[in-house]
């Protein structure tokens, strides 16, 4: 048996958007390879998600539904996945390159003794029927084309926010997996999930990012960026450069760049960011870039689709105002 497998991610019974992204790319690979697409759904009381997976292209849904899988725990999930892989021998397994996928995919790959390509932005099946991928390295300063030097399964994780989601309804036949987990082999316990209060969408999933750097002059001034993000809808959020984070103006989870997050929004608005090379690496794959900076020679302008040389403390609130005004029309 073969097949292209995807591991859609759910937390508390809700599928994440990236799950539909990996289904979409998985469907394309399955069609090209002439194999079926199966989704590997793990959780507790999640059977109702199978129809959603079918809508985005799953011919089959392997369902492991058990109270033991209610919380995501790496060792429990790894053992269920690896048993299913041994029994069905898929040719490709795709994970999402989220914090969950980063925890799980390498553990699965190591148990299976197979290579793993993480954070892929392009995936294809070559003429020999093998998976080839493209993945950014050095936070996007370069891209590597990678192939697998072994038999199945070929394992990859896909960067969120890169693949446009497409519906392609299929049967989504549910195949139940027997779940046998040895509790002594699960050596972590989930105590709590803390949501940031009033948290906006995560940087890696955001459609719009308004980012601030040293030019913001202090933590209190980020409120004008928060206001701008708020006027750009629920999928907009605020990021920061390394200097802003190192100055403790913003938490490290906001940092964009080589020692922070690599982001791929539709729109990136850089405010008071000069454009150090390690920052540019992290945001250059944004579809559109706007730079606002008082220094006309700032390197950020070389990457920007639209640049405004001027005082961000005047310009940013004006943009917010203009957006609100034009939205009313």
């Amino acid at each position, binding site marked *: 048996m073969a097949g292209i497998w995807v591991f859609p991610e759910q937390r508390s019974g809700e599928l*994440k958007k990236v799950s539909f992204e990996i289904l979409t790319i998985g469907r394309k690979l399955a069609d090209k390879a002439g194999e079926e697409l199966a989704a590997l759904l793990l959780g507790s009381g999640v059977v109702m998600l199978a129809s959603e997976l079918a809508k985005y292209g799953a011919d089959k849904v392997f369902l492991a539904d058990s109270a033991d899988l209610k919380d995501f725990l790496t060792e429990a999930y790894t053992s269920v996945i690896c048993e299913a892989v041994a029994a069905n021998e898929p040719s490709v397994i795709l994970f999402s390159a989220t914090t969950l996928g980063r925890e799980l995919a390498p553990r699965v*790959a190591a148990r299976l003794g197979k290579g793993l390509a993480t954070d892929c932005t392009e995936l294809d099946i070559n003429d020999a029927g093998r998976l080839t991928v493209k993945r950014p390295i050095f936070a996007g300063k370069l891209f590597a084309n990678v192939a697998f030097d072994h038999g199945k399964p070929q394992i990859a994780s896909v960067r969120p926010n890169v693949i446009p989601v497409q519906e392609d309804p299929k049967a989504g036949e549910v195949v139940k997996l027997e779940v046998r987990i040895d509790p002594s082999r699960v050596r972590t316990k*989930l105590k709590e999930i803390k949501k940031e209060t009033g948290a906006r969408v995560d940087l890696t999933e955001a459609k719009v990012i308004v980012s601030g750097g040293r030019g913001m002059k202090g933590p209190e001034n980020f409120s004008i960026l928060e206001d701008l993000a708020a006027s750009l809808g629920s999928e907009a959020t605020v990021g920061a450069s390394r200097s802003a984070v190192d100055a403790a103006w913003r938490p490290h989870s906001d940092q964009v760049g080589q020692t922070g997050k690599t982001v791929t929004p539709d729109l990136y608005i850089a405010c008071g960011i000069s454009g150090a090379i390690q920052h540019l690496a992290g945001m250059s794959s944004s579809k559109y870039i706007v730079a606002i900076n008082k220094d006309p020679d700032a390197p950020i302008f070389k990457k920007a*689709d639209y640049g405004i040389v001027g005082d961000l403390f005047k310009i940013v609130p004006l943009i917010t105002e203009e957006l609100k005004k034009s939205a009313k029309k």
Partner: protein
Amino acid sequence: MKQVPDTESVLRIDGEGTGIVEQGLQYVANPYDEYAVEEALRLREKFGQGTVTVITVGPQRAEEAIRYFFAMGADEAVHIRDDEPQKRDALSVAQCLAEAIKDMEYDVIFCGKQAVDDDSAQVGAMLAELLDIPQATVVTKLEVVGDNKSAVVHREIEGGEEVLEIQLPAVITAQKGLNEPRFTSLMGIKRAMSKPIEIREMKVPEAKTKVISLERPPERPSGRILEGEDTDVVRELVDALRNEAKVLD
């Protein structure tokens, strides 16, 4: 830990098209590994005992990074020499580390959450699997609890954090925010020069994933600078974003 090109580096692709030109690059300790070593030092200081051992798989130049961690305060080091690092992938490095570590005694293994060169973010979790111990990746806080048999860790997740209790020994991969790495002192740097490093020759397994080629990201089309009065410029920008770029709803 791993030695990587400084994040300010401008990179060139080599003649074969599968690697980068190392000549002229400034190499540093991987920034995330600094958090890893710092956390290990803090545990040693807190408990007033124990040894911090730094292990790397890498070419001779990686010794500089080992010396840096000696200067921070690491006690011992094992350098698994590999003169062809570009032929490795995360699994082959993890296999090599596991082989070296399996006969050592350890309470916690800290790694950086990823190396900022290949950005794989795999070795820590793979190493945990190969050693058959649990793991927690992207950790921003760690506290040893329960008769020192487990730790409570905070992991960064999208839009929040996850708090886990994990049995020790375990692999912990460090995220920025876990701590503030100390500066090296002149004394520390002096001491670091003379500390012995255990060199191991080991057959590093072949990579299972292969880089076929490297390429540069597509050049961004040159943009335009909007000029004029602030209010006009802003109106022009919003109009362009809405009607030209079509990125606004």
